[in-house]
Protein backbone atom coordinates (compact mmCIF):
# COMPACT_ATOMS: atom_id res chain seq x y z
CA UNK A 1 0.00 0.00 0.00
CA UNK A 2 1.36 3.45 -0.90
CA UNK A 3 2.14 5.92 1.87
CA UNK A 4 0.73 9.45 1.90
CA UNK A 5 2.52 12.13 3.92
CA UNK A 6 1.12 15.55 4.81
CA UNK A 7 3.00 17.65 7.37
CA UNK A 8 3.59 15.47 10.41
CA UNK A 9 0.99 12.93 9.26
CA UNK A 10 1.86 9.70 7.44
CA UNK A 11 -0.72 7.10 6.49
CA UNK A 12 -1.27 4.19 4.14
CA UNK A 13 -3.71 4.66 1.28
CA UNK A 14 -5.96 1.61 0.99
CA UNK A 15 -6.95 0.23 -2.37
CA UNK A 16 -10.03 2.02 -3.81
CA UNK A 17 -9.55 4.87 -1.35
CA UNK A 18 -8.76 8.36 -2.63
CA UNK A 19 -5.81 10.30 -1.30
CA UNK A 20 -8.33 12.70 0.26
CA UNK A 21 -10.12 9.93 2.15
CA UNK A 22 -6.81 8.56 3.39
CA UNK A 23 -5.86 12.03 4.66
CA UNK A 24 -9.24 12.62 6.32
CA UNK A 25 -9.08 9.20 7.99
CA UNK A 26 -5.76 10.23 9.52
CA UNK A 27 -7.09 13.56 10.72
CA UNK A 28 -5.22 15.78 8.28
CA UNK A 29 -6.70 19.32 8.19
CA UNK A 30 -7.71 19.26 4.52
CA UNK A 31 -10.96 20.91 3.45
CA UNK A 32 -13.23 19.35 0.87
CA UNK A 33 -16.71 19.66 -0.57
CA UNK A 34 -17.76 17.81 -3.76
CA UNK A 35 -15.37 14.83 -3.59
CA UNK A 36 -15.85 14.59 -7.35
CA UNK A 37 -13.00 16.63 -8.79
CA UNK A 38 -15.02 19.80 -9.42
CA UNK A 39 -14.93 22.25 -6.52
CA UNK A 40 -11.16 22.37 -5.98
CA UNK A 41 -11.35 22.74 -2.20
CA UNK A 42 -9.20 19.65 -1.52
CA UNK A 43 -6.38 20.86 -3.77
CA UNK A 44 -2.92 20.10 -2.36
CA UNK A 45 0.64 20.44 -3.61
CA UNK A 46 2.80 17.43 -4.46
CA UNK A 47 6.22 17.88 -2.89
CA UNK A 48 7.53 14.44 -3.71
CA UNK A 49 6.20 11.53 -5.76
CA UNK A 50 4.09 11.46 -8.92
CA UNK A 51 0.34 11.73 -9.30
CA UNK A 52 -1.74 10.50 -12.27
CA UNK A 53 -2.89 13.06 -14.86
CA UNK A 54 -6.52 12.49 -13.82
CA UNK A 55 -5.74 14.24 -10.50
CA UNK A 56 -4.95 17.46 -12.40
CA UNK A 57 -7.81 17.36 -14.91
CA UNK A 58 -9.44 20.78 -15.28
CA UNK A 59 -6.80 22.69 -13.31
CA UNK A 60 -5.30 25.91 -14.67
CA UNK A 61 -1.89 25.47 -16.28
CA UNK A 62 -0.25 27.68 -13.67
CA UNK A 63 -1.62 25.39 -10.95
CA UNK A 64 -0.48 22.25 -12.72
CA UNK A 65 2.97 23.81 -12.96
CA UNK A 66 2.99 24.29 -9.20
CA UNK A 67 2.33 20.58 -8.75
CA UNK A 68 -1.23 20.99 -7.48
CA UNK A 69 -3.54 17.97 -7.53
CA UNK A 70 -7.11 17.30 -6.43
CA UNK A 71 -6.78 14.84 -3.57
CA UNK A 72 -10.33 13.48 -4.02
CA UNK A 73 -9.57 12.08 -7.48
CA UNK A 74 -5.93 11.18 -6.80
CA UNK A 75 -5.13 7.45 -6.72
CA UNK A 76 -1.35 7.49 -7.05
CA UNK A 77 0.32 4.09 -7.20
CA UNK A 78 3.48 5.24 -5.43
CA UNK A 79 4.21 7.16 -2.23
CA UNK A 80 3.25 10.84 -2.11
CA UNK A 81 4.45 13.71 0.06
CA UNK A 82 1.94 16.54 0.04
CA UNK A 83 1.69 20.06 1.43
CA UNK A 84 -0.96 22.80 1.53
CA UNK A 85 -1.26 24.99 -1.57
CA UNK A 86 0.48 28.38 -1.59
CA UNK A 87 -1.27 31.18 0.32
CA UNK A 88 -1.95 33.20 -2.85
CA UNK A 89 -3.96 30.40 -4.47
CA UNK A 90 -7.12 31.44 -2.68
CA UNK A 91 -8.16 35.03 -3.33
CA UNK A 92 -9.28 37.25 -0.46
CA UNK A 93 -12.66 38.90 -1.05
CA UNK A 94 -15.31 40.90 0.78
CA UNK A 95 -19.08 40.73 0.60
CA UNK A 96 -20.16 44.08 -0.86
CA UNK A 97 -23.90 43.47 -1.29
CA UNK A 98 -26.57 40.99 -0.20
CA UNK A 99 -29.95 41.29 -1.92
CA UNK A 100 -32.88 38.90 -1.81
CA UNK A 101 -33.94 38.27 -5.42
CA UNK A 102 -36.85 36.17 -4.14
CA UNK A 103 -37.77 34.39 -0.93
CA UNK A 104 -35.47 31.55 -2.02
CA UNK A 105 -32.57 33.21 -3.81
CA UNK A 106 -29.96 35.62 -2.45
CA UNK A 107 -27.74 37.66 -4.73
CA UNK A 108 -24.27 37.91 -3.16
CA UNK A 109 -21.78 40.38 -4.59
CA UNK A 110 -18.10 39.92 -3.81
CA UNK A 111 -15.20 42.28 -4.44
CA UNK A 112 -11.83 40.57 -4.71
CA UNK A 113 -8.82 42.25 -3.12
CA UNK A 114 -6.64 41.50 -6.10
CA UNK A 115 -7.60 41.11 -9.75
CA UNK A 116 -9.68 38.03 -10.53
CA UNK A 117 -9.94 36.91 -14.16
CA UNK A 118 -12.85 34.74 -15.20
CA UNK A 119 -15.15 34.02 -18.12
CA UNK A 120 -18.88 34.59 -17.67
CA UNK A 121 -20.48 31.27 -16.73
CA UNK A 122 -17.55 29.75 -14.85
CA UNK A 123 -17.86 28.93 -11.17
CA UNK A 124 -15.89 29.70 -8.03
CA UNK A 125 -15.63 27.93 -4.73
CA UNK A 126 -16.65 30.23 -1.90
CA UNK A 127 -14.81 29.57 1.34
CA UNK A 128 -16.33 30.82 4.57
CA UNK A 129 -14.10 32.15 7.40
CA UNK A 130 -14.38 28.76 9.17
CA UNK A 131 -13.31 26.85 6.03
CA UNK A 132 -16.69 25.54 4.80
CA UNK A 133 -16.49 25.49 0.99
CA UNK A 134 -19.24 25.40 -1.67
CA UNK A 135 -19.17 26.05 -5.41
CA UNK A 136 -21.26 28.81 -7.03
CA UNK A 137 -21.55 29.95 -10.61
CA UNK A 138 -20.69 33.48 -11.62
CA UNK A 139 -23.61 35.56 -12.96
CA UNK A 140 -21.61 38.71 -13.71
CA UNK A 141 -19.37 39.72 -16.60
CA UNK A 142 -15.57 39.91 -16.58
CA UNK A 143 -14.45 43.22 -15.08
CA UNK A 144 -17.44 43.43 -12.72
CA UNK A 145 -17.62 42.27 -9.10
CA UNK A 146 -18.39 38.57 -8.65
CA UNK A 147 -22.15 38.10 -8.55
CA UNK A 148 -23.51 34.80 -7.18
CA UNK A 149 -27.12 33.61 -6.99
CA UNK A 150 -27.39 31.40 -3.95
CA UNK A 151 -30.47 29.29 -3.46
CA UNK A 152 -31.41 29.29 0.22
CA UNK A 153 -31.76 25.59 0.83
CA UNK A 154 -33.54 24.95 4.16
CA UNK A 155 -30.95 23.62 6.63
CA UNK A 156 -28.15 23.94 4.10
CA UNK A 157 -24.97 24.88 5.92
CA UNK A 158 -23.82 27.58 3.51
CA UNK A 159 -27.42 28.57 2.72
CA UNK A 160 -28.32 29.24 6.35
CA UNK A 161 -25.18 31.28 6.83
CA UNK A 162 -25.97 33.40 3.78
CA UNK A 163 -29.57 33.86 4.89
CA UNK A 164 -28.99 34.74 8.54
CA UNK A 165 -25.37 35.43 9.43
CA UNK A 166 -23.42 36.84 6.48
CA UNK A 167 -22.93 40.62 6.55
CA UNK A 168 -21.79 43.23 4.06
CA UNK A 169 -18.10 43.85 4.67
CA UNK A 170 -17.47 40.27 5.78
CA UNK A 171 -14.20 38.70 4.59
CA UNK A 172 -14.35 35.42 2.67
CA UNK A 173 -12.00 33.58 0.33
CA UNK A 174 -12.57 32.49 -3.23
CA UNK A 175 -10.98 29.68 -5.22
CA UNK A 176 -11.18 29.45 -8.98
CA UNK A 177 -12.45 30.15 -11.49
CA UNK A 178 -13.25 26.68 -12.83
CA UNK A 179 -15.37 25.10 -15.48
CA UNK A 180 -15.69 25.26 -19.25
CA UNK A 181 -19.30 26.35 -19.41
CA UNK A 182 -18.70 29.72 -21.11
CA UNK A 183 -19.14 31.47 -24.45
CA UNK A 184 -16.29 31.38 -26.96
CA UNK A 185 -16.25 33.57 -30.06
CA UNK A 186 -16.17 31.93 -33.48
CA UNK A 187 -19.30 30.73 -35.25
CA UNK A 188 -21.25 33.90 -34.27
CA UNK A 189 -24.28 32.81 -36.32
CA UNK A 190 -24.80 29.54 -34.44
CA UNK A 191 -28.11 29.48 -32.49
CA UNK A 192 -27.52 29.27 -28.75
CA UNK A 193 -29.73 27.23 -26.45
CA UNK A 194 -29.35 28.11 -22.77
CA UNK A 195 -31.40 26.01 -20.35
CA UNK A 196 -31.32 26.23 -16.58
CA UNK A 197 -33.49 25.30 -13.63
CA UNK A 198 -33.52 27.21 -10.35
CA UNK A 199 -30.25 29.05 -9.73
CA UNK A 200 -28.91 27.24 -12.82
CA UNK A 201 -29.96 30.56 -14.32
CA UNK A 202 -26.96 32.35 -12.74
CA UNK A 203 -24.25 31.22 -15.19
CA UNK A 204 -26.67 31.50 -18.14
CA UNK A 205 -27.47 35.11 -17.29
CA UNK A 206 -23.73 35.82 -17.58
CA UNK A 207 -23.23 33.71 -20.72
CA UNK A 208 -26.20 35.29 -22.55
CA UNK A 209 -24.99 38.84 -21.91
CA UNK A 210 -21.42 37.86 -22.72
CA UNK A 211 -22.51 36.45 -26.09
CA UNK A 212 -24.41 39.66 -26.89
CA UNK A 213 -21.42 41.74 -25.81
CA UNK A 214 -19.07 39.69 -28.00
CA UNK A 215 -21.25 40.36 -31.06
CA UNK A 216 -23.06 37.03 -31.37
CA UNK A 217 -25.43 37.29 -34.36
CA UNK A 218 -27.42 34.05 -34.15
CA UNK A 219 -30.52 33.77 -31.94
CA UNK A 220 -29.92 33.33 -28.20
CA UNK A 221 -32.65 31.29 -26.51
CA UNK A 222 -32.70 31.41 -22.72
CA UNK A 223 -35.09 28.98 -21.05
CA UNK A 224 -35.56 29.21 -17.30
CA UNK A 225 -37.40 26.41 -15.58
CA UNK A 226 -38.95 26.66 -12.13
CA UNK A 227 -41.46 24.67 -10.16
CA UNK A 228 -43.76 27.61 -9.43
CA UNK A 229 -43.97 31.24 -10.62
CA UNK A 230 -42.08 32.50 -7.52
CA UNK A 231 -39.07 30.54 -8.79
CA UNK A 232 -38.71 32.78 -11.85
CA UNK A 233 -36.58 35.09 -9.76
CA UNK A 234 -35.15 37.21 -12.59
CA UNK A 235 -38.30 37.41 -14.71
CA UNK A 236 -38.56 41.20 -15.04
CA UNK A 237 -34.88 41.70 -15.77
CA UNK A 238 -34.85 38.95 -18.40
CA UNK A 239 -37.96 40.24 -20.16
CA UNK A 240 -36.17 43.57 -20.56
CA UNK A 241 -32.87 42.02 -21.67
CA UNK A 242 -32.12 42.97 -25.29
CA UNK A 243 -30.87 40.44 -27.82
CA UNK A 244 -32.11 37.39 -25.91
CA UNK A 245 -35.26 35.29 -26.43
CA UNK A 246 -36.35 34.58 -22.87
CA UNK A 247 -38.78 31.75 -22.22
CA UNK A 248 -39.88 31.02 -18.65
CA UNK A 249 -41.41 27.61 -18.04
CA UNK A 250 -43.15 26.16 -14.99
CA UNK A 251 -43.14 22.50 -14.06
CA UNK A 252 -46.72 22.59 -12.76
CA UNK A 253 -48.13 24.38 -15.81
CA UNK A 254 -45.93 23.28 -18.71
CA UNK A 255 -44.44 19.92 -17.68
CA UNK A 256 -40.80 18.88 -17.29
CA UNK A 257 -38.32 21.32 -18.81
CA UNK A 258 -36.68 18.68 -21.05
CA UNK A 259 -40.04 18.07 -22.75
CA UNK A 260 -40.58 21.80 -23.14
CA UNK A 261 -37.14 22.22 -24.71
CA UNK A 262 -37.56 19.33 -27.13
CA UNK A 263 -41.02 20.59 -28.02
CA UNK A 264 -39.54 23.96 -28.94
CA UNK A 265 -36.45 22.52 -30.63
CA UNK A 266 -37.23 19.06 -32.01
CA UNK A 267 -34.19 19.25 -34.31
CA UNK A 268 -31.41 20.81 -32.22
CA UNK A 269 -28.54 19.70 -34.50
CA UNK A 270 -26.22 22.62 -35.18
CA UNK A 271 -27.07 24.55 -32.02
CA UNK A 272 -24.70 25.21 -29.15
CA UNK A 273 -26.21 24.31 -25.79
CA UNK A 274 -25.45 25.41 -22.24
CA UNK A 275 -27.20 23.42 -19.52
CA UNK A 276 -26.98 24.27 -15.83
CA UNK A 277 -28.61 23.45 -12.52
CA UNK A 278 -30.21 20.31 -11.12
CA UNK A 279 -27.91 17.36 -11.94
CA UNK A 280 -30.68 14.96 -12.98
CA UNK A 281 -32.26 17.50 -15.33
CA UNK A 282 -28.89 18.45 -16.81
CA UNK A 283 -28.08 14.78 -17.45
CA UNK A 284 -31.48 14.04 -19.00
CA UNK A 285 -31.34 17.06 -21.28
CA UNK A 286 -27.82 16.28 -22.36
CA UNK A 287 -28.80 12.78 -23.33
CA UNK A 288 -32.00 13.78 -25.11
CA UNK A 289 -30.39 16.64 -27.04
CA UNK A 290 -27.56 14.33 -28.10
CA UNK A 291 -30.00 11.66 -29.23
CA UNK A 292 -31.93 14.30 -31.21
CA UNK A 293 -28.77 15.11 -33.14
CA UNK A 294 -26.82 17.69 -31.15
CA UNK A 295 -23.06 17.10 -31.23
CA UNK A 296 -21.78 16.29 -27.71
CA UNK A 297 -18.92 18.71 -28.25
CA UNK A 298 -21.49 21.49 -28.64
CA UNK A 299 -23.00 20.78 -25.24
CA UNK A 300 -21.54 22.63 -22.26
CA UNK A 301 -22.98 21.70 -18.92
CA UNK A 302 -22.55 22.41 -15.22
CA UNK A 303 -24.49 20.11 -12.94
CA UNK A 304 -24.92 21.65 -9.47
CA UNK A 305 -23.85 18.55 -7.58
CA UNK A 306 -24.50 18.74 -3.84
CA UNK A 307 -21.54 18.58 -1.48
CA UNK A 308 -20.50 15.05 -0.46
Amino acid sequence: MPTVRYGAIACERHENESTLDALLRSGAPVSYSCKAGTCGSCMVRVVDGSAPARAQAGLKDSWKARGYVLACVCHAEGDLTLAPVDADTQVAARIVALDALSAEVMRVRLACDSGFDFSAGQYVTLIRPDGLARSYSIASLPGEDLELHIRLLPNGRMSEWVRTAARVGEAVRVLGPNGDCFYTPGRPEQPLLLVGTGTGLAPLYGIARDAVRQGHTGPIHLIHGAVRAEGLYLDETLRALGGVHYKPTLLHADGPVDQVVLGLFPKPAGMRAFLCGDPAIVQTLKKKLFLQGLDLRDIHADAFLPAA
Partner: protein
Amino acid sequence: MEAAVDIFYRKVLTDGRISHFFDGVDMDRQRAKQKAFLTMAFGGPNSYSGQDMRTAHARLVTMGLNDSHFDAVVELLGGTLAELGVPANLIGQVAAIAESTRKDVLGR
Protein backbone atom coordinates in the same frame (compact mmCIF):
# COMPACT_ATOMS: atom_id res chain seq x y z
CA MET B 1 -13.96 8.65 -36.98
CA GLU B 2 -15.69 11.44 -35.01
CA ALA B 3 -18.86 10.94 -37.07
CA ALA B 4 -18.75 7.20 -36.45
CA VAL B 5 -18.40 7.73 -32.70
CA ASP B 6 -21.57 9.83 -32.49
CA ILE B 7 -23.66 7.58 -34.73
CA PHE B 8 -22.54 4.45 -32.90
CA TYR B 9 -23.06 5.96 -29.45
CA ARG B 10 -26.58 7.18 -30.39
CA LYS B 11 -27.46 3.67 -31.54
CA VAL B 12 -26.09 2.13 -28.35
CA LEU B 13 -28.01 4.54 -26.09
CA THR B 14 -31.32 3.94 -27.85
CA ASP B 15 -31.13 0.17 -28.30
CA GLY B 16 -33.46 -1.36 -25.74
CA ARG B 17 -31.43 -4.59 -25.62
CA ILE B 18 -28.33 -2.93 -24.20
CA SER B 19 -29.00 0.73 -23.28
CA HIS B 20 -29.44 -0.10 -19.57
CA PHE B 21 -25.75 -1.00 -19.31
CA PHE B 22 -24.99 2.65 -20.06
CA ASP B 23 -27.36 4.28 -17.55
CA GLY B 24 -25.58 6.57 -15.15
CA VAL B 25 -22.23 6.59 -16.94
CA ASP B 26 -20.85 10.07 -17.58
CA MET B 27 -21.56 10.90 -21.24
CA ASP B 28 -18.37 12.80 -22.03
CA ARG B 29 -16.18 10.08 -20.58
CA GLN B 30 -18.26 7.42 -22.28
CA ARG B 31 -17.86 9.17 -25.64
CA ALA B 32 -14.08 9.04 -25.19
CA LYS B 33 -14.42 5.33 -24.45
CA GLN B 34 -16.55 4.75 -27.53
CA LYS B 35 -13.73 6.30 -29.47
CA ALA B 36 -11.26 3.89 -27.86
CA PHE B 37 -13.67 1.08 -28.74
CA LEU B 38 -13.84 2.05 -32.40
CA THR B 39 -10.10 2.64 -32.67
CA MET B 40 -9.65 -0.88 -31.40
CA ALA B 41 -12.27 -2.34 -33.69
CA PHE B 42 -10.56 -0.73 -36.67
CA GLY B 43 -7.37 -2.45 -35.63
CA GLY B 44 -5.74 0.90 -34.85
CA PRO B 45 -3.28 1.52 -32.03
CA ASN B 46 -4.61 -0.57 -29.19
CA SER B 47 -3.73 0.52 -25.70
CA TYR B 48 -5.94 -2.13 -24.06
CA SER B 49 -4.80 -5.59 -23.09
CA GLY B 50 -7.17 -8.54 -22.75
CA GLN B 51 -6.92 -8.06 -18.99
CA ASP B 52 -7.99 -4.40 -19.35
CA MET B 53 -11.03 -5.52 -21.32
CA ARG B 54 -11.93 -7.99 -18.59
CA THR B 55 -11.59 -5.35 -15.90
CA ALA B 56 -13.54 -2.72 -17.87
CA HIS B 57 -16.52 -5.04 -18.32
CA ALA B 58 -16.42 -7.02 -15.08
CA ARG B 59 -19.10 -4.82 -13.48
CA LEU B 60 -21.34 -5.39 -16.52
CA VAL B 61 -20.87 -9.16 -16.37
CA THR B 62 -22.24 -9.09 -12.82
CA MET B 63 -25.21 -7.15 -14.29
CA GLY B 64 -25.84 -10.06 -16.67
CA LEU B 65 -23.81 -9.14 -19.76
CA ASN B 66 -23.93 -12.12 -22.15
CA ASP B 67 -23.50 -13.25 -25.77
CA SER B 68 -26.78 -11.68 -26.91
CA HIS B 69 -25.61 -8.24 -25.75
CA PHE B 70 -22.26 -8.77 -27.38
CA ASP B 71 -23.98 -9.71 -30.65
CA ALA B 72 -26.14 -6.59 -30.42
CA VAL B 73 -23.08 -4.36 -30.11
CA VAL B 74 -21.38 -6.01 -33.08
CA GLU B 75 -24.60 -5.57 -35.07
CA LEU B 76 -24.81 -1.84 -34.22
CA LEU B 77 -21.17 -1.45 -35.12
CA GLY B 78 -21.82 -3.00 -38.53
CA GLY B 79 -24.90 -0.80 -38.98
CA THR B 80 -22.88 2.32 -38.17
CA LEU B 81 -20.21 1.49 -40.71
CA ALA B 82 -22.77 0.60 -43.38
CA GLU B 83 -24.46 3.98 -42.82
CA LEU B 84 -21.13 5.67 -43.42
CA GLY B 85 -20.68 3.80 -46.70
CA VAL B 86 -17.87 1.50 -45.56
CA PRO B 87 -17.58 -1.46 -47.99
CA ALA B 88 -18.85 -4.85 -46.79
CA ASN B 89 -15.49 -6.66 -46.83
CA LEU B 90 -14.01 -3.98 -44.52
CA ILE B 91 -17.02 -4.25 -42.20
CA GLY B 92 -16.34 -7.98 -42.07
CA GLN B 93 -12.76 -7.36 -40.97
CA VAL B 94 -13.86 -4.92 -38.26
CA ALA B 95 -16.43 -7.42 -36.99
CA ALA B 96 -13.74 -10.10 -36.83
CA ILE B 97 -11.50 -7.90 -34.69
CA ALA B 98 -14.42 -7.14 -32.35
CA GLU B 99 -15.20 -10.87 -32.25
CA SER B 100 -11.66 -11.61 -31.03
CA THR B 101 -12.41 -9.76 -27.79
CA ARG B 102 -15.57 -11.71 -26.95
CA LYS B 103 -14.02 -13.99 -24.32
CA ASP B 104 -12.37 -11.10 -22.49
CA VAL B 105 -15.41 -8.81 -22.62
CA LEU B 106 -17.68 -11.55 -21.28
CA GLY B 107 -15.10 -12.56 -18.65
CA ARG B 108 -14.72 -16.18 -19.73
